[in-house]
């Protein structure tokens, strides 16, 4: 029996390698990643490319959820990977690579949002979805409501939600990654969930009226 002595975020590595024994995955993947980090710290480009391939999806996913714009997420992920390469020699503890890389991708996403200017469409326009959506199945409607609610959150609120529910970070880890107090993490989560729930509830209330003239 292998004991999960490694930080919780290594669970994601286990998910990457579907079909491989979970026990084996948990035991050797973190060590492999650690070795890749150490080799990349010494300037080994091939090791870095292997590392980037392994962590790329989760970094891109985080950027995608924060920015809600695939093109911006690509730019942010690319910038984050280059920043990781540049700054790796300054990472004192390779075991902290996970939280450290998340911090870099969040910074890159914030910078990308800033570079593209923060103009957003007036909420009044978003509040009137196309009528075609009314015919979608419940699951699709659910997704659309979440999408719209998520769009209305600020990038910093989205970052907290994405770190919590996409990257499976704890509140303490999110606080460390974002360099904000744990209380702020919790209040942002609370606010975000309340907004998302309100979006879903509003949709549910309007459901009986659907299809009426």
């Amino acid at each position, binding site marked *: 029996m292998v004991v999960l002595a490694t930080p919780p975020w290594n669970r994601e590595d286990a998910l990457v390698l579907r079909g491989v024994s979970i026990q084996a995955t948990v035991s050797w993947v973190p060590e492999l990643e650690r070795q890749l980090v150490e080799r990349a710290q010494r*300037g080994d*480009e091939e090791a*870095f*490319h292997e590392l*980037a*391939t392994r962590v*790329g*999806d989760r*970094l*891109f*996913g985080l950027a*995608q*959820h924060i920015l809600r714009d*695939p093109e911006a997420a*690509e730019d942010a*992920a*690319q910038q984050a*990977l*280059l920043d990781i*390469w*540049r*700054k*790796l*020699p*300054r990472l004192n503890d390779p075991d902290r690579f996970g939280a450290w890389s998340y911090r870099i991708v*969040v*910074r890159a996403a*914030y*910078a990308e*949002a*800033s*570079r*593209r*200017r*923060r*103009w*957003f*469409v*007036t*909420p009044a*326009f978003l509040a009137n979805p196309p009528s075609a959506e009314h015919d979608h199945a419940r699951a699709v409607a*659910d*997704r659309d409501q*979440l999408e719209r609610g998520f769009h209305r959150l600020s*990038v*910093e609120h989205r970052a907290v*939600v*994405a770190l919590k*529910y*996409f990257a499976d970070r704890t509140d303490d880890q999110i606080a460390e990654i*974002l*360099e*904000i107090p744990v209380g702020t993490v919790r209040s942002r989560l609370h606010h975000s*969930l309340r907004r*998302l*729930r309100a979006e*879903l509830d509003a949709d549910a209330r309007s459901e009986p009226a659907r299809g009426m003239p």
Partner: protein
Amino acid sequence: MNPEHDIESRVERWLKAEARPMPPQVLTAVREVVPRTSQLGRPGPIASERWSRWYGRLGLLAAAAVLVIVAGPAAFDQLRTILHWPDGVGQGVIAPSPSPAASPPPSASPSPAASPTTSPSASPDPFTGTWSTIDVDGSPMTIAFDGNGPTRNVVVEDLRASTCAGEHHVTDGVGTIEGSSIRVVGRGGCAGRPKDLALNVTWTYDPEAGTLRTPADWVTGLGTFSWTRGPVKPDAFNGSWIATDIDGSSMTLSLSGSGLTRDVSYVDDRALDCSPGAAFSAQGSGTIGSVVGDGRFISVSLHGSCAGGASPKDSVEKYKYDYVTDTLIGPLTPLDIGGDPLPQTVTWRRG
């Protein structure tokens, strides 16, 4: 089901289902750029190449120097013979005494830039003169030190004091020099009225920045103030600020008003989101916020549209006014606010 848990599980399912794998072109681009990107604290390929080129050049220079010292006189003699130069021509090149051109003319005086009196760090008294900063409402404040010996006559002025309903506030006092600090004790009041406000504050000289600093509790809880030499700025925020957008177009941010709020207008002369060549303009207001480090924040809410009212949009942004550089930096990201702005952050200069 607990509604709290329900929304959490729905959000989690949605986020994980919506996540897409990283497009391969991102990794391809990274693979292309990494070999040309040096790591911090390590000489990268470019740096190594550059250093090796420099070492090569230094080697050549050293060899040339040795050649000139060892073989120079003989070589010049031979060259003079070949070119039929008269005696003396070319000898000054390697003459052991300095050439007339190399020695300073007797009438030359030190340039003002090199004068110790204009360099605060070289001066025994870095305080004497006039310094200015920006008050909590964006208006200017000045402090002037004058005199000799261990004390200075001091005049502190708030050119638009809130306690004087926007009028002038003046404090007269005496400053006692204590190392790199000067403690100022005095009394102040609104112009033309009794001086009924006591002042007991220490200004500290920062030799690295060349600025004076006042403590965080000078104006309760508002952070330190940096005081700089030079012309007094009429207002931290008011005026036109110009920056270049990422697409090369020109952006103008105009602020006016007084107190803690400002009227704000914004124009991008060629906005990406508008029809080709069309401008985007917006209007709104700003609220001046806290003091952090060398600056002060202003939060701006704008509503705007492309020319003709197309594509209406809103924004809520935060900018930082920097005392020392007299620039506006932003819009800032949340992480900028806690630390140094990111390199990509736009810097606005007075127009």
